[in-house]
């Protein structure tokens, strides 16, 4: 044996290892790609070999090639093979490769679930550690769901090394499977509250003064961090940071771009009404100085961000802002023309008072368009011409000389602009034309108007030839219109009115979320199908039919629209009426009068030609002047206010204001213009919604979970259960369909889960296919784990969440109390349960009359009644100071001689329990199933260890011969208790009670089949009377269903027929009647002794409550 190993390794050592590969690549610099491709071929050969060491070596090389950019996903399955090696050396190689190249789309990842679980519970901490590290990189939602509980268990591992990793990885698990957050939170909280020396507390509030020292430091890192810290403090203490404006502005001169960008970020948060103009002025200076378009563009966007933030909150003078925007158009080679344009449009549309000024500025821009057209690249600065043309056209009533602007817009050079801008030019030329006509209306001399028409007729043909469809279409349309108008003009017909009507009405901005906020009218169900949904079963040969049905649909739809047309007209009328009455609706107003009411504005020299600076657009007032004016204005106001205050003081009025000697507060600065910023339109009855601002792509959104709500049973983490796979019975489908009310009650979340479940099913089937494909490996995995061999059937199941709904149709509505991890919680629940019961008794009478009806209920669909108290089938097996065992026995559908015993082991001690061995003394009738090769008295290893306070479930399969009698088996659990100081060997004896009920399997039965069965006469009868039963009838039925595995066939009033079947095919029928706290059960079965025992057990169940 040893020789074989040595021989194998000698063969191996001449294989190329990672170092050889790297060396080879370095020696083949010329033909690296070719060399690597031969290496990949070699690797493929190596991967085909059986020797795991060779495979691991190959995978290790692949990991290197992956870093060089080679796709190695084709070897994913080999990586899984290497991961499942029992040697740490190879396992680590496998996990590293997986962490480098596995992701959610990797299909073999599903095969790893059991392997990872095995590694997580490995007795070697380094196997566990490697698995955790690997999993942290490639965890998928499925893996997170299936392994959440295992990882939770690891949070209480004895080794701090593992605990630390387990706590960290929980974060990833939460991100992938947010449902696990609530059940895991209490323990996580507990872990995080542990004194953890790993985390040092960060100093939170640093004095801003100290930060200043940092920023002034010569060390660039400190400077950067100082600025960063400032921006954090800024959010809470804006005032204290604002006083360091000078320093931050200085940082804009830093040679390090990272620092400049930080400073810019800070400035964004620092502006106020008072300092906005000053800061922007500084920034404008930097724009001029800045080298490199990237940083200059960054500055530009920052300036606009700063000014436009929170709906132009800090702008007191919009003329200044327009001037800034116009100045920014001087920027050569910027990518943000579009941004400037949208700002111009936004301001001109929303600040009505500024329109006159804006139009004048835009007209100048248009006139000097040649300065801007040098840069015609997309998003280039010429985009601002789009805005300029539109503003001049739309608000042309403010233009002093529309004729001149019109002429500027129709220059031949315009044809070199991008198509979408030309289109706007053409359209707005028409608007200007209308304005010109109106201006000259009534004049006796129609010369000017006719000249305008002629201008258009001369210039438009250029645009008619445009290659751009939009331009061409608009130009030819407008050209024909103008030609027609010209004809009318020659006949001296007054046309201005009609032409103006073409462009009448005012455009109002619509809020971006307006559409979303339109309330859904009552009675409209957006999720309902308009037409019948296409059936999924539609096969290909049915397709020709579809042509027919389509036509039919069309027909019916057109009829609908006919009806709607009238309705629409009516609604339009109503809407108009409403708008007329709505004070918030902004109506078109004759807005030609200017609203300049601020002092000082008239003094602005509108025309100022500065030829010494060639880049400046001539005729533009520079923003600097506004700054000066603003300062003067504020000074003046201040003085006036002081005067007033003095007056007030002199008058000695009751309420005296304190003299305002300190720095001016924000409120004191009044805007220069009485501006009303037109708010964006919202639909009437808009629904307020808070979730607007949430980013749907935020990965953390899913973690927005209320952690204080008590846990619902459905939320418990999927524990690895070992239930035998239940064949989908017809009843299950039936049940799922017949509980619509129930599903309504469920939260949307659960619905989602259901959907997921479906997907899962699909996935699982896929997985199973894969499993077949790689059966050998799977077997290999199982071989190394004998205790799992018994449960080979169940391991498949393990990937699905073991909600009881999947297991037994009857229990899906009953909150089943599962493995209780927190004793306290359990007790609390029991208390609640008791209280509930009390209440129920109160309502009992009332309830009874309610239930009285002819409602026949199928198989426990008792939806209209009170919720049932939680029930559990787990009963105590044995208990001592270390461990508690509870168990449940279930029959196996597929095998008539097998039952499965599920045992939950709960560690009650403060020590670690390990090496648990489970053994039972077999009887002639019942035997514990042991793996092949094991002796008849060998014990079974429990496939997990238990950290303190943790519980986990294991299952054991028993074979039985006769099932007509109940039976008890003696058994022993041995385990090692390991604490810090010592470890002791302990044992616990128990008695497993196989009741006859445990041989029954819930089986649905249709009422007609049931009737036939009773008629057949093969069954022998027996009966039972229960006195003093003080519970609602449906609770009684539910209990029989739940504890004794029956299903309700039919229920009428206080009488119900029930059915169950044993694993060996015995039929058991019950007729349950109730009146006045007395329950009589008539029963029939083809095996009288089985029936007698079952009835005895039912009696016992009810004697307990």
């Amino acid at each position, binding site marked *: 044996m040893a020789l074989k*190993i*040595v021989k*194998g*390794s*000698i063969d191996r*050592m*001449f294989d190329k*290892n*990672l*170092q*050889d590969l*790297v*060396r080879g690549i*370095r020696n083949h610099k010329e033909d690296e790609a070719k060399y690597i491709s031969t290496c990949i071929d070699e690797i493929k050969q190596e991967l085909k070999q059986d020797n795991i060491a060779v495979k691991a070596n190959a995978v*290790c090389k692949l*990991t*290197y090639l*992956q*870093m*060089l*950019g080679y*796709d190695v996903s084709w070897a994913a399955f080999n990586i899984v093979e290497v991961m499942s090696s029992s*040697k*740490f*050396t190879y396992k*680590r*190689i496998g996990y*590293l490769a997986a962490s480098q190249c596995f992701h*959610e*789309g990797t299909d073999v990842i599903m095969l790893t679930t059991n392997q990872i679980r095995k590694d997580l519970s490995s007795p070697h901490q*380094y196997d566990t*550690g490697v698995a955790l*590290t690997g999993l*942290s*990189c490639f*965890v998928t939602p499925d893996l997170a769901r299936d392994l959440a509980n295992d990882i939770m268990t690891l949070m209480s591992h004895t080794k701090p*090394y593992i605990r*630390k*990793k387990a706590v*960290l*990885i929980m974060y*990833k698990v939460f991100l992938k499977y947010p449902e696990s957050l609530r059940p895991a939170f209490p323990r996580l909280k507990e872990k995080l509250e542990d004194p953890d020396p*790993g985390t040092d507390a*960060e*100093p939170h509030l640093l004095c801003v003064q*100290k930060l200043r*020292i*940092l920023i002034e430091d010569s*060390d*660039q*890192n400190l*400077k*950067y*961090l100082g600025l*960063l810290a400032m921006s954090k403090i800024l959010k809470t203490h804006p005032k204290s940071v604002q006083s360091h404006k000078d320093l931050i502005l200085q940082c804009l001169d830093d*040679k*390090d*771009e*990272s*620092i400049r960008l930080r400073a810019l970020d800070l400035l964004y948060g620092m502006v106020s009404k008072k300092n906005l103009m000053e800061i922007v002025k500084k920034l404008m200076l930097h724009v001029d100085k800045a080298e490199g378009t990237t940083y200059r563009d960054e500055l530009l966007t920052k300036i606009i961000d700063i000014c436009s933030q929170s709906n132009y909150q800090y702008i007191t003078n919009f003329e200044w802002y327009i001037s800034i925007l116009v100045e920014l158009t001087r920027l050569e080679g910027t990518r943000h023309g579009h941004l400037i344009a949208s700002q111009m449009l936004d301001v001109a549309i929303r600040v009505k008072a500024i329109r006159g000024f804006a139009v004048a500025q835009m007209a100048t821009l248009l006139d000097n368009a040649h300065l801007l057209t040098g840069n015609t690249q997309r998003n280039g600065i010429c985009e601002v011409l789009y805005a300029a043309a539109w503003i001049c056209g739309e608000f042309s009533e403010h233009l002093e000389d529309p004729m001149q602007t019109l002429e500027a817009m129709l220059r031949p050079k315009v044809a070199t602009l991008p198509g979408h801008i030309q289109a706007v030019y053409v359209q707005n030329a028409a608007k200007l034309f209308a304005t010109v006509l109106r201006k000259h209306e009534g004049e006796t001399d129609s010369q000017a108007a006719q000249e305008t028409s002629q201008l258009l007729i001369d210039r438009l043909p250029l645009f008619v030839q445009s290659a751009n469809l939009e331009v061409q279409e608009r130009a030819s349309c407008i050209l024909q219109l103008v030609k027609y108008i010209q004809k009318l003009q020659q006949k001296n017909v007054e046309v201005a009115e009609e032409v103006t009507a073409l462009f009448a009405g005012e455009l109002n901005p619509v809020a971006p979320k307006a559409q979303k906020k339109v309330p859904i009218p009552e009675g409209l169900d957006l999720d309902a199908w308009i037409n019948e949904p296409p059936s999924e079963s539609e096969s290909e040969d049915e397709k020709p039919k579809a042509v027919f049905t389509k036509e039919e649909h069309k027909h019916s739809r057109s009829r609908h629209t006919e009806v709607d047309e009238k309705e629409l007209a009516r609604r339009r009328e109503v809407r108009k009426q409403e708008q007329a009455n709505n004070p918030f609706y902004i109506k078109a107003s004759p807005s030609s009068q200017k609203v300049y009411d601020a002092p000082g504005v008239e003094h602005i020299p509108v025309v100022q030609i500065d030829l010494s600076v060639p880049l400046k657009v001539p005729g533009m007032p520079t923003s600097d002047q506004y700054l000066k004016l603003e300062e003067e204005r504020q000074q003046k106001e201040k003085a006036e206010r002081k005067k007033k205050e003095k007056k007030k003081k002199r008058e000695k009025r009751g309420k005296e204001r304190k003299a305002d000697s300190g720095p001016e507060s924000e409120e004191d600065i009044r805007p220069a213009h009485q501006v009303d910023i037109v708010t964006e339109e919202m639909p009437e009855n808009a629904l307020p919604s808070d979730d607007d601002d949430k980013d749907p792509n935020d990965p953390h959104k899913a973690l927005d979970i209320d952690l204080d709500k008590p846990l619902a049973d459905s939320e418990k983490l999927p524990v690895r259960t070992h239930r035998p796979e239940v064949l989908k019975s017809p009843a299950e489908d039936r049940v799922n369909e017949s509980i619509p009310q129930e599903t309504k009650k469920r939260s949307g979340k659960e619905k989602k889960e259901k959907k997921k479940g479906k997907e899962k099913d699909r996935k699982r089937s896929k997985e199973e296919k894969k499993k077949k494909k790689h059966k050998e490996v799977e077997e290999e995995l199982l071989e190394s784990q004998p205790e799992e061999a018994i449960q080979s059937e169940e391991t498949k199941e393990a990937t699905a969440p073991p909600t009881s709904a999947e297991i037994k149709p009857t229990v899906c509505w009953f909150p089943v109390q599962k493995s209780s991890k927190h004793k306290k919680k359990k007790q609390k629940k029991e208390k609640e349960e008791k209280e509930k019961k009390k209440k129920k008794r109160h309502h009992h009478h009332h309830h009874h009359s309610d239930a009285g009806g002819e409602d026949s209920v199928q198989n426990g669909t008792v939806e209209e009644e009170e919720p049932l108290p939680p029930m559990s089938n787990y009963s105590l097996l044995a208990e001592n100071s270390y461990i508690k065992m509870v168990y449940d026995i279930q029959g196996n559908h597929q095998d008539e001689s097998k039952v499965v015993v599920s045992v939950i082991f709960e560690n009650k001690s403060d020590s670690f329990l390990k090496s648990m061995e489970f053994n039972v003394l077999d009887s002639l009738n019942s035997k514990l199933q042991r793996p092949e090769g094991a002796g008849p008295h060998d014990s079974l290893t429990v496939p997990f260890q238990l950290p303190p306070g943790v519980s986990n479930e294991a299952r054991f399969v028993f074979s039985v011969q006769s099932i007509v009698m109940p039976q008890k088996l003696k058994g022993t659990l041995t385990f090692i208790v390991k604490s810090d100081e010592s470890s002791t060997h302990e044992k616990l004896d128990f008695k497993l009670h196989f009741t006859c009920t445990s041989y029954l399997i819930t089986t649905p039965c249709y009422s007609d089949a049931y009737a036939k069965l009773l008629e057949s006469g093969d069954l022998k009868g027996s009966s039972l009377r229960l006195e003093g039963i003080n519970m609602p009838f449906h609770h009684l039925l539910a209990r029989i269903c739940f504890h004794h595995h029956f299903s309700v066939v039919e229920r009428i009033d206080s009488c119900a027929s029930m059915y169950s079947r044993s694993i060996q095919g015995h039929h058991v029928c019950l007729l349950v009647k109730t009146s006045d706290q007395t329950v009589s059960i008539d029963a029939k079965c083809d095996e009288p002794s089985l029936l007698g025992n079952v009835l005895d057990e039912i009696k016992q169940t009810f004697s307990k409550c």
Partner: protein
Amino acid sequence: MIKAILIFNNHGKPRLSKFYEHYTEDTEQQIIRETFHLVSKRDENVCNFLEGGLLIGGSENKLIYRHYATLYFVFCVDSSESELGILDLIQVFVETLDKCFENVCELDLIFHMDKVHNILAEMVMGGMVLETNMSEIITQAEAHNKMEKSEAGIAGAPARAVSAVKNMNLPEMPKNINIGDISIKVPNLPSFK
């Protein structure tokens, strides 16, 4: 969260890449190139922080890097990570490598990428900082190596001998690319106290 850890040399050749989010191999290479481009054009005496490249999240992420002789160590992190903490982590990483490889140089990283990954796995897990204590990291790494050796046992002996022979050639290659001065320059912050 740490989004990616990249080590490349002065020519942009990757020596280690660890992405904590999934990208295709092509994108990964582009990110490495982009990051190299961003980092390598910076002067030596500017700060060690800059905004991330467009491919890896743009300004939402930060690049925190250190340049040692021939190698750049770049951590791409999101806003939840502390700059100084990561800067320190890089230092710990490099010092740990220095201890484990005994005077680490670029060649060590070239030939033992797997070992570098294993050391890194003890420091950063799934993009989260796991351990910053150097002695703890080294203890774990050594325990792992011990385990590997014990597993190789007698069967590993011939392979080790061959690999020793193979590596005899190594010294011929220039081993002078020492990573250079790694004396910590953690900013001294007396003013905080």
